[in-house]
């Protein structure tokens, strides 16, 4: 009655780790790409202001769409991941 439903053995923990590992790498890459674009765009916006460059301002505006695209990718990824249904039967079994 009081026995734990889910005993955290090393084998089961490894199954959890491997389940998330691939997706977390995708997430990390997505976040780094977003950070890189946000940094570059802010730099372009600053340079456009200092150098009075319309070209740089327009590029900063245009490239922002890539961040939005990556955010949609991130949202889609998290929607697919949660709840992690395929994982639980193998752990409880």
């Amino acid at each position, binding site marked *: 009655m009081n026995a734990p439903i889910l005993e955290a053995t090393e084998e089961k923990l490894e199954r959890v780790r491997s389940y998330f590992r691939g997706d977390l790498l995708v997430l990390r890459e997505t976040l780094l790409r977003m950070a890189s674009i946000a940094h570059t765009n802010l730099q372009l*916006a600053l340079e456009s*202001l200092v150098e009075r460059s319309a070209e740089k301002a327009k590029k900063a505006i245009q490239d922002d769409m890539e961040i939005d695209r990556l955010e949609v990718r991130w949202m889609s990824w998290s929607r697919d991941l949660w709840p992690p249904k395929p994982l639980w039967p193998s752990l409880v079994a």
Partner: protein
Amino acid sequence: MLAASKLSSDLERIGDQAVSIARRSLILMDEPPLKPLLDIPRMGADVLAMIRGATDAFVEITPEKCAEIIKMDVRVDDINRQLERELTCFMVESPKTITRALNLMLVARFFERAADHAKNIAEQVFYLYTGEDIRHESEFSKN
């Protein structure tokens, strides 16, 4: 994962601030410069360093770097307030400068908001790796 979700949201908003600055920059180009730009490039450099630092802390798993990033936000806020006072003086002295001064004020405000988002990222990265919430700890931002 929830911390990572917040990082994504803050990065997207930094992108939005960059777009807002670029749009104001296009408007400001149509008129002669109001003053030499000194404070805004300083703010911009600080914000860029904050984003780079927060990203490095995330990648290199170095939450100790986050405290320095959080302190930089205070400096950006100070420059913004100083610039607001200076631009208000311009507007009081000459109404012809109002449009340009207001646009510069908005640009400074956009940088200040971008710095807030970079600070949020640093706080999230710190939480992600240490499990400690430093959002309301004054020693990080005031010392």
